């Protein structure tokens, strides 16, 4: 008897199969959500944004869940592999549907216009949370049904995650102290748990430190989402758990979670690299180019791009008179000193961008994407955390602080976009990674392209759609 030829993932059915699998996953999660709504443990607006517990409304919820799941299956297809990638795409999918469904199509059908104004958007906060969780869970279930989840992590990977989580939490706890009355005793257990879970999602998906940092920031958002939206429900918080008031109160823990996620990802990646450096004796498995051969040029490019970004940021700094505050970092108050410090910091961050994101962009839009994400990270880490610490001001992460820090967020995003865009243009001029000279190099470039396209667009999208719009919803 001869065995049937092994069927690769690429050949396990066409679009019909993926749509059906997605619809099945969507139905399962839809049933779960509907049961939660009927049991009053979930807000009734969680999935579609509209209240209603009649059989018709319940049926509508399930139909929507099936349809959304089918479409998700179609979009994911066979391309997406790995648990982390699935979760990221699922989250982005849920966020997009929030804009498209509860904010656009349904209001359009009911009242003839989209509901894009802030009050309507704030009212639909429960459905944002619901759709984010629906998207992530459906994508994971889809992956399980298609057998494309990440394999279980090794013990070493779990240990690395635990160390990364504990270390990041410890450092954060030491640095943040008692930030604005925010008692951070929960950080250590949360860090340990998040650190252990990180390899489950991203342990087998090898990425560079820069993309890892953005991935970690998004992971931090996911951890915050679980902490603020899932845990209370599981603890019997009921339908009020996702209200704007509760979320606004929980907003104070969002920056620590984002920093925790970023820290976990960075330490995890670095520990992995350290392990390779110390214990891998096969040079073919290590990076072939030494940092000295590219580092100086990358540093120069990063400094130049950072300087341009800093000048762009200066427009915002001037308008909101922030140079005096920046000058206090060096114990001065003159705006000129603040301007100089600002430009020096801009260049230092530019250099760090070059080190972290070197050869990670493949066109201008990807450079902008990484830059915007990095700018956002530096808003949380730099503006909201380091700046108060360095200037002796109290740390505040509440809704009012988000409100105050919003101009700086705009500046950081503009800075990041300029940094990423200019750095890409400089890097592209000489020996870009996709410009190959042999079949082997072409294959390596193709692998890198596939890796980047696997998660990078989801990360940019999530940062833009969710993490950036949340401050407006909470603080607006």
């Amino acid at each position: 008897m001869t065995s049937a030829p092994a069927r690769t993932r690429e050949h396990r059915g066409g679009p019909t199969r993926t749509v059906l699998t997605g619809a099945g996953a969507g139905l399962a999660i839809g049933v779960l959500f509907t049961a939660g709504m009927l049991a009053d443990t979930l807000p009734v607006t969680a999935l579609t944004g509209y209240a209603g517990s009649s059989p018709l409304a319940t049926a509508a919820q399930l139909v929507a869940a099936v349809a959304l799941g089918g479409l998700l299956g179609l979009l994911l297809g066979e391309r997406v592999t790995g648990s982390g990638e699935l979760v990221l795409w699922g989250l982005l999918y849920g966020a997009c549907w929030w804009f498209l469904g509860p904010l656009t199509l349904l209001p359009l059908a009911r009242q003839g216009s989209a509901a894009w104004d802030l009050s309507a958007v704030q009212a639909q906060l429960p459905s944002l949370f619901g759709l984010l969780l629906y998207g992530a869970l459906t994508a994971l279930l889809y992956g399980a049904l298609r057998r494309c989840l990440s394999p279980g992590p090794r013990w070493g990977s779990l240990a690395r995650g635990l160390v990364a989580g504990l270390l990041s939490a410890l450092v954060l706890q030491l640095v943040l102290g008692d930030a604005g009355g925010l008692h951070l005793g929960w950080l250590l257990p949360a860090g340990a748990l998040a650190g252990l879970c990180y390899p489950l999602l991203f342990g087998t998906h090898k990425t560079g430190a820069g993309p890892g940092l953005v991935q970690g920031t998004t992971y931090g958002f996911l951890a915050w989402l679980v902490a603020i939206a899932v845990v209370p429900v599981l603890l019997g918080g009921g339908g009020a758990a996702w209200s704007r008031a509760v979320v606004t109160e929980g907003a104070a823990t969002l920056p620590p979670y984002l920093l925790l996620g970023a820290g976990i990802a960075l330490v995890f990646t670095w520990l992995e690299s350290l392990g390779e450096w110390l214990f891998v004796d096969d040079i073919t498995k290590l990076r072939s180019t030494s940092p000295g051969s590219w580092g100086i040029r990358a540093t120069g490019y990063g400094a130049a791009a950072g300087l341009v970004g800093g000048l762009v940021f200066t427009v915002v700094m001037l308008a909101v008179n922030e140079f005096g505050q920046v000058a206090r970092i060096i114990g001065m108050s003159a705006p000129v000193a603040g301007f100089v410090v600002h430009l020096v910091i801009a260049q230092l961050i530019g250099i760090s961008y070059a080190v972290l994101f070197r050869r990670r962009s493949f066109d201008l839009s990807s450079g902008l994407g990484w830059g915007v994400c990095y700018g956002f990270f530096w808003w949380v880490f730099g503006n909201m955390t380091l700046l108060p610490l360095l200037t002796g001001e109290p740390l505040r992460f509440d809704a009012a602080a988000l409100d105050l820090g919003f101009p700086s967020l705009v500046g950081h995003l503009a800075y990041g976009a300029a940094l990423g865009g200019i750095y890409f243009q400089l890097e592209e001029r000489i020996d870009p990674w996709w410009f190959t000279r042999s079949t082997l190099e072409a294959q390596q470039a193709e692998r890198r392209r596939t890796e980047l396209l696997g998660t990078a667009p989801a990360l940019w999208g999530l940062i833009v759609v969710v993490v950036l719009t949340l401050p407006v919803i909470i603080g607006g």
Partner: protein
Amino acid sequence: MSGAGEWAAVLAKVRAVPAGLAAWGALAGIAAAVPVGALLALHQASGPVDLPVLLAYPPVMGALIAIATAPRLRGRVPIASAGLVMGLLGWLVWSLTLDPWLRGERLDWSIVSAAHAYPVLVADLAHGSLTALLVQLLRAIGPLRAGTDAAKDSPATLGRVVIVGSGFAGVSAAKRFERLALRNIPIDVTLVGSSNFLLFTPMLAEVASGALEPAHISAPVRASVAHTRFRNRTVAAVDTDRKLVELAPGAAPAEWVPYDHLVLAVGSVPHFLGLPGVEDFAMTLKDLHDATALRDHVLEQLEQADSVEPDPAERARMLTFVVAGGGFAGAEAVAELFDLVHGVLPFFPGITPDEPRFVLVHSREHILPELSAALGDYAMQRLRARGIEFRLTARVSGATPVEVRLDDGGTIPTRTFVWTAGNRPSPLVRSIGGEHARGGALATDSCFRVTGLEDVWAIGDCARIPDPGGPDTFYPPTAQHALREGAALADNVASVLRGRTPREFRFRTIGVLVALGHRTAAAEIRGHRFSGFAAWMMWRAIYLAKLPGVEKRVRVLLDWVIDLVLPRDIVVTRSESPTRPERVR
């Protein structure tokens, strides 16, 4: 590159953006704006819709998205995410910044402003994604199909170009061809060089003096032009009728490489003018082997004079160092030899500091004719003050292993004779047809095309390139010219391959610098003269910056730092120690 050159490059890049791509992107932006704009209009039914914005924003954003998203970004979902990012940036730039500014409102980027503009944010995000998806659709099925990956990843080449010579000119041309390939002007380039590195000749004298390590002033060709096919071979012949280049047999058998366009950048070799004994007994300073051989030879002379030689005449010959030629190479060589000998003299207690003798023979009244007379005199004065002798208006008429003969009847007893007084184009040039100028260089027009030959181009030391700036003037064979000629040549070859007219090469010499040994140099930059320590610092800074490759810059910088604090190495690396500098040919 000059400021004008930078601007020209920027303009060229802007022109390189396909207008069609931007136009189709603009159309996609307008198309995407129809549903999104309708939704926004419905939403803002109670308020005014900004018509100019509705008309201007979509096409501009569409064009930007089309330009910013390369065909490399495959797939609908990834490109929609890129569109989201662009939409966010569009919102930040337009709705939060330009729009209030144009209305005369105070810019505060506050959360209140953001909340006010939130509906537009949703619209901009939707518009960005939809536009990106439409652009992708156009790439997949529509008029932008030509720019997709299939075309981009395996483009047909416009032609085959063979560059002979891996010096400044040849490598510069190859680098430019790589840049052109990045701009979707793919040309199949083969670079042939007898050495696998690009030698930075301005620092060669410092290698001869032991201040720099030989490998540190040479950059591997494969690293400099990583995407160019490189053949580390010698060219035996060129058949311009059949358009074939024959690579001489060596470790590999002979090989014929076909070309559509041939670029000759073979440089020059020492020319001994047929003077008796010079070719046999003079040392040259053209490549790394010459520099290390000269250093080893000088150290051997010191070793023998210190410990072995009892005969005063022979001892004087061993400690006399003669350089022929008062140009850059000669002046730098004699100055560096002086530094080498006096720098290592403490290791040779049997030699007193007044024993070593250095002589520069030059046929004119002033050395360094490339510089102004005043700077030439300054250089001569500085060198003379150290004790270097000058035999001016004298020519070498012959050489033996123990002396150099001059045309004025004089002789200089020496065992070290360095020849820098003449160069001629590589012998390969002589075997090629076409018009040759006096001295044997290939005569070209101002676009580098060799006169009398079809599709053959020449640059660098082997070419005589007319300067359109004046009658009967030609560009000098210097590194700064060779670098610019290489880049301009690649542009011209690409133009011809695309059916366009090549451009005349125009370049104004930036300046000249000459190192005069220990902490002294002379420089003339755009008419401004510099000398002494400032010029020396300038020399080091400029040439360090010009050195190919960051890695080599770091290594040379470290060599210079080490040279400040540690004595020079007196290890003789040559395995055999000939008693006289016979050239091995």
